């Protein structure tokens, strides 16, 4: 049904106060402490003594209208209609009545089919991007690779057995919209963009030239048409120009690979936040289940679980034992490509005589 009337513009963010569970509204700003009752279940205790239970479950992030309605049915039955989502696309069912906790968990896991977990030192849901489902730049899928990987890591989602939490992110190109995680998967390209000189008129050429971080793109006339040329030695296959101009195709179904990065951390707890670092490169882009990626991540998780001390995030564990040990313990080869050559490169060398021998 099309609606031709102009609705009001610039209304801004929704009024969140309408969407607060009554116990949230009542105890807003007056919470005392929280505990993890069991994996996937939190209880927040207010200064008033009120208790609010949270049942956290992994959502697929992408869902049909009918699935959203099924979620609503659960929330209406148990949660007075109130839920929230987390940064990592988990859903949280909010419950005031402790006696209904088991029934709610059963309804979420059996009825809805969504696993309860993702709290504390577990592998939480994976931050991910659009991929082949709906992005214009992807070299791989996102929702599908996340589904495959979380199938393999389901026990790590449902239990809390790591030294600290593990955040995984999965991005379908090097722009990395899913950002840094303890473990991050991205796509990598391996040659210069292929220029469709006959279709460059759809792009703003000065912007195409200006966007190149390596200054590798120059204006050129090709076959009598205005276009650009690429200095092959300078190009680092980043694909910035492809985002600006679809006639500069960077992707290659035959040669694109995946790589795994480790040690990203957003939190300030204990140590300052850190970027992710390269661990494994050259993994095949292998739909529908990307088993090579899954195997490599499981290997990293196993070494971290065995070697990390309480509260150490994955990157903090590696910094303590040293990168040499990380590669030994995981069995991944350390190669010359792991040595940074960015503008930050020198600060990433071992600038000391402190060497494990």
């Amino acid at each position, binding site marked *: 049904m099309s609606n031709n009337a102009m609705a009001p513009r610039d209304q801004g963010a929704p009024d969140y106060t309408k969407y607060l569970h009554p116990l949230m509204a009542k105890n807003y700003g007056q919470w005392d402490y929280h505990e993890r009752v069991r994996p996937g279940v939190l209880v927040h205790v207010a200064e008033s003594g009120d208790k609010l239970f949270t049942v956290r479950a992994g959502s697929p992030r992408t869902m049909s209208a009918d699935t959203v309605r099924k979620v609503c049915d659960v929330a209406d039955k148990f949660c007075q209609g109130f839920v*929230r989502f987390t940064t990592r696309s988990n859903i949280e069912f909010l419950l005031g009545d402790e006696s209904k906790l088991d029934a709610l968990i059963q309804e979420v896991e059996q009825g809805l089919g969504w696993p309860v977990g993702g709290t504390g030192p577990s592998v939480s849901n994976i931050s991910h991007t659009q991929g082949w489902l709906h992005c214009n730049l992807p070299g791989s899928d996102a929702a599908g690779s996340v589904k495959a990987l979380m199938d393999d890591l389901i026990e790590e989602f449902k239990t809390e057995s790591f030294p600290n939490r593990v955040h995984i992110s999965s991005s379908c190109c090097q722009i990395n919209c899913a950002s840094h995680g303890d473990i991050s998967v991205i796509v990598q390209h391996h040659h210069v963009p292929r220029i469709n000189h006959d279709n460059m008129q759809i792009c703003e050429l000065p912007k195409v030239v200006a966007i190149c971080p390596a200054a590798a793109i120059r204006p050129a006339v090709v076959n009598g048409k205005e276009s650009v040329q690429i200095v092959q030695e300078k190009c680092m296959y980043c694909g910035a120009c492809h985002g600006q101009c679809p006639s500069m195709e960077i992707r290659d179904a035959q040669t694109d690979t995946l790589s795994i990065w480790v040690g990203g951390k957003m939190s300030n707890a204990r140590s300052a936040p850190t970027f992710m670092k390269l661990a494994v490169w050259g993994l095949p882009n292998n739909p529908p289940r990307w088993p090579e990626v899954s195997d490599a991540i499981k290997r990293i998780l196993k070494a971290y679980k065995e070697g990390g001390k309480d509260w150490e995030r994955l990157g903090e564990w590696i910094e303590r034992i040293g990168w040499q040990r990380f590669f030994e313990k995981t069995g991944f080869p350390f190669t010359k490509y792991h040595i940074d050559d960015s503008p930050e490169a020198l600060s990433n060398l071992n600038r000391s005589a402190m060497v494990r021998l």
Partner: protein
Amino acid sequence: MSNEMGSQGMALRTPMLNELESGPWPSFVKDLKEYSKKKPQVVQLLNQLEDSYENKWNYWLGKIINVPGYGGGVIARVSEKADQYPLLANFHTVRIIEPPGWVYNTEALRDLADAAEQHGAGILQFHGMSGDILLLGFDDAGSMSVAEDLMGSGWDIGGSGAAMRTLQCCVGQARCEMACYDTMKATKFITDSFIEFLHRPEFVYKFKFKLSGCGNDCSNSIVRSDMPIIGTWRGPMQIDQEKVAEFIDAKGLEYLIDNVITRCPTRCISVKGKTLKVEDEECVHCMHCINVMHKALKPGKDRGVTILVGGHRTLKIGDTMSSVLVPFMKLETDEDLENLKEFIERVWEFWNDNGMDHERIGEFIHRVGMATFLDGVGLEADARMIARPRTSPYIKFEELAPSRFGGETTHKPQVWNREPEGAETAD
């Protein structure tokens, strides 16, 4: 109805995707296959996705369409395979501003689901990586009608392009004892105050805010936003010594030493008997000890925020981590919020007057230097902005340049002057 032309009778053909139907994690394939009985365009979407899986290739291109009055918020997608999949010829995403903290009631969720189903393919995502609600699969007319429909019931369109983007924040004071300020209120305030900059791209490039109530940074602001606003406190941390003793009784002294005392980044915590002491002036508010002993320890009572600037991912100069811009600002009263608004306007003005096309603020600061940036936005240098002072000696001291090169004539900079002999007072 907008999407009901074209080949109704197409069959699903998804052998590779079918392998994603089984397994314990919820399957979007299973969900969308079931739902495709209602929506022929979802059959075509899955079939095109299957082609992507087979050929490791993507078939979406971008284009630009806008809801009247707005310059962003619709992520338009056209299929390269529209001949084969005519219902994907125009298959856009509409971004909707989420409730701060991602809190919902089922009335709101059903409202979104109904609108997505009525005007388009009925596919929703909670949430995009910028925090928005994403509704997928509208043709041009459907994109307009779903926007009018949802705006008619109080929702608004999200950001895209060279604009302020939709904000995101942690659950904050709604359900967390660690939140040092009202992240939801501040998120709504910034969104509403600058809504024209969210809807009509006029910056040199995108600008993201993310708000977290404490240094645990659950909104991932420090790496993923141009301006993280992170809760903190001044003065003494709150310590309940009785609960410290209970913690030691329950966990043991060794656990306290290994996991609290020695994990403090500034070693400002010590224990004597069963009493914990914190040198508050050395505390950097990292949150670790509070995370471990959250019943015994709490943030102090004089609370506010630390504002950072400049985080973004690789494109173009490499990753930039946000760094401290305002070490502490109160953010409690309406006047505090107005001060924040005025500060944001100053930062934006200098960046947009001097930034280059497609230059994020972190890249801009990298190019012009933080000292120049501070001059531009009217902030004094503060040692809490840096990890360490510069190591390069090549410096243009304005105060020390000869006057013929435009410097001061005095040669007596006010940076530091030796005390006169005998000036020390013996008491």
